[in-house]
């Protein structure tokens, strides 16, 4: 397999955007192409990650539209829809194209405009990934699956609401240092949990989860330029290598898993990514996890192998996952505060890791390290892509 490097990375500010869908994708793409500074090296293919444009924005065939907006013809172009894991799946498609020798340079852009519809409609759009016959008809939404998961997980492992609140506080604090984040709002444990007004500020969404356990509904785009290792070296600047990618699936209906709180697909995807990279969870310097709900950051950090089951809560409490901790998790602010434009999320996680590994993350820069890990969690854990990035030091 040919080595693959990431030579360009960019994203738009997440939040509410008035920019048209394809223009939003073009903004991120042009940023990544500028960052890559390819010169005369052509882009062979573009891969667009998107989950809902057909329904949310009444537009299909986004990759064809983006290749046109960027005047990159005759580059190959295709769109990847893989639920909330579309972003990392699209990166995987790009990596495979280069690794196989079918392409030398691939532009991967994730984009989603969810604020084009009401919150109710956006929630229903995401809920359409649940099982239609045994979940959706009961009014199941993603927050409700997270609530069912959280209650059992918290009971079994002694996780308390304050542990989840600490994750929200940490990720909001990180997002304060991220100009691209959707939410710039510092919060405290008092304000969302212990003060009398917390009842009003932080109402229940799907018990035991409250408002500040849930990510916002966002618009945004993120983009990476991937290049074959020899091209990345020829460009002459430090780059980040895609060291490992792992993907795994699980049952569609959450209740059908032998243990509904065992994130088997996260564990298997992570094991595969680490195995491909020849690394272990202990080697990781910085991680971006898919905290669509605070409980997921906690549970994924255990399933990916960073903490034994039940140990992530105490680790968060000790500050081990903060910017200056042993393993900073979600320095970007995570989905919780950076935002979650679903198709863009998996790409944006890797954009953050590239910036962190290149030492370009500004105020939220973690201590110098060479290994990054991302978990892009599709469905409710039924389709997960894990990625390990490694800085090439030459």
């Amino acid at each position: 397999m040919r080595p693959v490097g990431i030579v360009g990375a960019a994203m738009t500010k997440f939040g509410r955007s008035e920019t048209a869908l394809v223009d939003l994708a073009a903004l991120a793409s042009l940023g990544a192409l500028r960052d890559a500074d390819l010169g005369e090296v052509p882009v062979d293919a573009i891969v667009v990650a998107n989950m809902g444009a057909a329904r949310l924005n009444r537009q299909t065939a986004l990759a064809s539209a983006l290749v046109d907006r960027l005047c990159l013809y005759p580059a190959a172009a295709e769109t990847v829809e893989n639920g909330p894991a579309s972003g990392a799946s699209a990166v995987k498609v790009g990596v495979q194209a280069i690794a196989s020798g079918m392409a030398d340079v691939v532009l991967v852009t994730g984009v989603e405009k969810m604020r084009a519809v009401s919150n109710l409609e956006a929630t229903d759009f995401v809920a359409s990934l649940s099982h239609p016959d045994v979940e959706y008809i009961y009014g199941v939404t993603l927050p409700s699956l997270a609530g069912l998961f959280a209650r059992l997980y918290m009971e079994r492992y002694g996780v308390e609401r304050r542990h989840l609140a600490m994750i929200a506080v940490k990720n909001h604090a990180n997002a304060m240092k991220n100009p691209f984040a959707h939410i710039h709002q510092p919060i405290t444990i008092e304000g969302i949990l212990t003060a009398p007004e917390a009842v009003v500020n932080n109402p229940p969404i799907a018990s035991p989860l409250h408002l500040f356990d849930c990510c916002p509904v966002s618009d945004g785009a993120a983009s990476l330029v991937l290049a074959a290792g020899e091209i990345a070296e020829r460009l002459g600047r430090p780059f980040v290598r895609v060291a490992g990618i792992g993907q795994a699936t699980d049952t569609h209906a959450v209740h059908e898993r032998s243990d509904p709180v065992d994130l088997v697909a996260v564990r298997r995807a992570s094991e595969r990514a680490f195995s491909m990279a020849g690394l272990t969870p202990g080697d990781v310097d910085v991680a971006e996890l898919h905290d669509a709900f605070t409980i997921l950051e906690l549970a994924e950090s255990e399933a990916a192998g960073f903490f034994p089951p039940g140990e992530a809560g105490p680790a968060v409490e000790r500050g081990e996952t903060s910017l200056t901790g042993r393993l900073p998790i979600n320095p970007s602010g995570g989905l919780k505060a950076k935002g979650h434009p679903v198709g863009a999320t998996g790409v944006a996680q890797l954009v953050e890791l590239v910036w962190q590994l290149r030492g370009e993350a500004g105020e939220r820069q973690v201590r110098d390290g060479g290994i990054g890990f991302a978990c892009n969690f599709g469905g409710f854990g039924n389709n997960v892509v894990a990625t390990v990035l490694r800085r090439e030091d030459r």
Partner: protein
Amino acid sequence: MTAEVCGARCTSCGTVSYPRHAVCPACRGESFEAVPIGGTGRVLTYTDVYALAIDYETRYLRLAIVEFEDGTRAIGHLLDPAPSLGKRVRTTIGVVREPGEERIRGLQFVPA
């Protein structure tokens, strides 16, 4: 009488799947018979949903995953004013969603 909510029993190995799959998850058999899902069981987990899905106008919706005595599990509406993990419940069938004029019936759980 045909049950309103059915799982699929594999005619080769007897494993009951809910939801149905095209092949048996245990033996990869491809032949099934419909069997009713429900009976008595225990609440494995539950949630009170306040950010309601489209089609709902109640204040909140109480959802649960119940594990039945034969080991199968299902999500349904928990009609219990005092829910707790492990509590015994039994299944009834009722309206669980009303999109427009339609009335979709499904699993509801009440204290056993």
